[in-house]
């Protein structure tokens, strides 16, 4: 017999907010922010809440015990009014990096879909139609795996690098946090960016994702008037020039013939590149390979650059940054899909941050659960699973992860 899963999760969340709501801090100008909470009961969203100070926010959290807690990146004159009467005064600049947007090979291993028509199950991304009953409706279960989170972290580091070097923000101005599930948030609260409108933020997004980049504005050009020899950016150049060069360097270093052909390069060009790899690599010591390879002209270089840029760009969620009314998860609150915390950490500690250690909220106690199916995972130094149709006594944090994910039930 199983105790109700949901009431167990809620009791743990309540314990957390009763003991640790003081960890929740007020975002700057708390009185101008809108707050939103997803409740356990009927999954109702309570929005348009406002708080005058952090203490009333904390006591509200203790009282309602939400499954998810959010606040607006935006500042409003009247945050509790309906949207059209709130009076937008500005918004922090937010970036969201979610493993969902980054293809990793392990998604096929741990992500599960279930057909809503017949219950047929599969792994990876769901197909067009269910192979069994041809319906198109699926339930998808993703998993916050280490490989995916590591991939998200790499993207976050690329983003932070662009914000530091190109946009000139300082380490302290860039706030990085783990979302509590499958990604990272990066945000900036500086006054000067607050009144940027959606169009301006879109330009920032395009800069970070490399959208609309034209290499001719970054130094790829004819060596001289009428010349058919090309020159281009160098590895040590700053900004996108350097990124273009480094992206192309990596690509030409690693890509095999098949990958190069996929870029639309002619077969003889691909052959030249593959056969002259050494020469190409050495060419970076002087002017780079731009004028070096016969048959690789401006258009071919543009195709190669496009691919190189893709690798250098940071894969952010374009909608989050351009949406100036977005609700963002509140730091030091629990994520209802994992029971992990959204936690912030210093920008220069990003490499050492370990979500399965630093975001663990529940540090004491064990609970026995019946696990339907779960991949292998780690909490602190300990590894658990994989499980299939079995009972196990797990630390509360590990058990909560499975319970929140709907992969286990509490056993009694």
């Amino acid at each position, binding site marked *: 017999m199983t105790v109700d899963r949901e009431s167990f999760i809620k009791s743990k969340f309540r314990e957390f907010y009763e003991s640790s709501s003081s960890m929740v801090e007020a975002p700057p100008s708390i009185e101008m922010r809108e707050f939103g909470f997803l409740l356990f009961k009927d999954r109702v969203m309570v929005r348009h809440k406002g708080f005058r100070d952090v203490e009333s926010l904390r006591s509200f959290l203790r009282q309602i015990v939400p499954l998810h807690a959010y606040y607006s990146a935006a500042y409003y004159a009247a945050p509790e009014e*309906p*949207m*059209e009467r709130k009076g937008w005064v500005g918004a922090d600049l937010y970036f969201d990096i979610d493993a969902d947007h980054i293809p990793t090979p392990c998604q096929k291993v741990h992500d599960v879909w279930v057909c*809503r028509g017949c219950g047929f199950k599969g792994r990876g991304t769901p197909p*067009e139609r269910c192979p069994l009953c041809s319906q*198109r*409706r*699926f339930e998808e279960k993703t998993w916050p795996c280490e490989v995916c989170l590591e991939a998200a972290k790499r993207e976050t580091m690329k983003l932070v690098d662009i914000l530091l*070097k*190109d*946009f*000139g*923000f300082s380490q302290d101005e860039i706030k990085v946090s783990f979302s509590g599930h499958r990604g990272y948030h990066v945000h900036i609260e500086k006054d*000067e*960016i607050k009144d*940027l409108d959606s*169009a*301006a933020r*879109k*330009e*920032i*997004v*395009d*800069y970070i*994702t*490399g*959208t*609309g*980049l*034209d290499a001719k*504005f*970054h130094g790829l050009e004819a060596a001289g008037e009428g010349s058919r020899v090309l020159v281009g950016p160098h590895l040590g150049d*700053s*900004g*996108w*020039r350097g990124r273009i060069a480094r992206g192309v360097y990596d690509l030409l270093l690693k890509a095999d013939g098949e990958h190069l052909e996929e870029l639309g390069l002619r077969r003889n060009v691909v052959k030249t590149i593959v056969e002259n790899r050494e020469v190409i690599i050495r060419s970076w010591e002087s002017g780079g390979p731009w004028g070096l390879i016969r048959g690789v002209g401006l258009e071919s270089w543009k195709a190669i650059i496009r691919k190189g840029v893709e690798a250098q760009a940071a894969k952010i969620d*374009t*909608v989050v940054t*351009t949406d100036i009314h977005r609700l963002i998860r509140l730091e030091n609150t629990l994520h209802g899909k994992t029971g992990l915390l959204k936690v912030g950490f210093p920008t220069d500690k990003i490499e050492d941050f370990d979500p399965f250690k630093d975001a663990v909220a529940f540090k004491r106690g064990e609970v026995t659960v019946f696990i339907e199916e779960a991949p292998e995972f780690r909490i602190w130094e300990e590894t658990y699973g994989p499980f299939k149709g079995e009972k196990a006594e797990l630390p509360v944090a590990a058990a909560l992860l499975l319970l929140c994910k709907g992969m286990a039930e509490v056993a009694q």
Partner: protein
Amino acid sequence: MNLVLTKSDWAKYPFVPEATEYIKTLGLKVDSLSRPEFEPILDRAEGRVKEALLTNPPKVSYLEHNEEVELSSFPVAVVIAAATADDFIKKRYALAEARRAYDLLRREDKWKVLEVAKAFGWRVNVVTDEASAPRGYQLKLHFVDFLRNVKAFHESNWKLINRVMLGGEVYLTTYEAARLLQEEIRRHIEAKLRIDVRPILPPNVAQMVEELRLIRRRRFGKVYTEEIRFPKEAVVEAFPPCIRNLYEAAASGSHLSHAGRFALTSFLLNAGMPPSKIVDLFRSSSDFNERMTRYQVEHIAGLRGSRTRYTPYACDTLRTHGLCPGEENLCRGLRHPLTYYRRKLRMKAASKRSRPADQV
């Protein structure tokens, strides 16, 4: 090196704060404009607004040899343009003054452009180490000031991604900085024109205002914005490739991102498809919820909430959200999927008309 703007600079750029301060000391008041000693100023002020209406593209001239009048006629012209209470005149006048300033700025050196830019609070610096800096640039501007003024430009060389930016500063040539300043000046003057001065105008000025309104009516008539009329039934074959992809995905029940749904819905509404048909389109989606879908479609249609009907994403925004599948021939030079749709419909209509009768 730090130059101060001189009086002859004020005559060229009479909207900078120092010039405004100076003009205040002249004791020029709206109700004193009928006094004969102000006649030359009043004449030139009227001339400025007139030039804005009579030139195309609109541009106010610069009368080099009469600095005092050139300078003090500007605030008077602003009063006159504002008094017309006509948005068309106001916009056109602001643009004409901004184009005047651009024309003058283009001929200045980087130091002067720097000073004018600073007068608008721009965080801007001269590129000092030209040897190590990217070549050809004289000024560097904080990216926020750049983004605020670049909105009206659609050429790819103005996109932030195609600029050299280091440490938050966008590198610019003096020309480019002048062009961006034109935008700042235009907005600055437009904001100044949001005053209502009609009740205090002396009769001679009120008469001038009436004449200007007459010129505007004679020359431009009532300005009609082109009413976009699409056929009652949406013509799927005329959809641009981005919308066609989204449409087919929705019809086949495949998953669409939030941005994708918005792009499709707002396009279809603007192409004249009724909300109920759009709701039906999403019916085969895996997470279809009739109540929620209806609410969202009606919200985008402006039937709920803020009551504003959303305009569909432009090409640029579709690219940002990864919804542009790449240009088709007909996409070239276009900035909006609705323009593609309109053009394709027109082409279809034309090819129908030109078909010989025996083939119909």
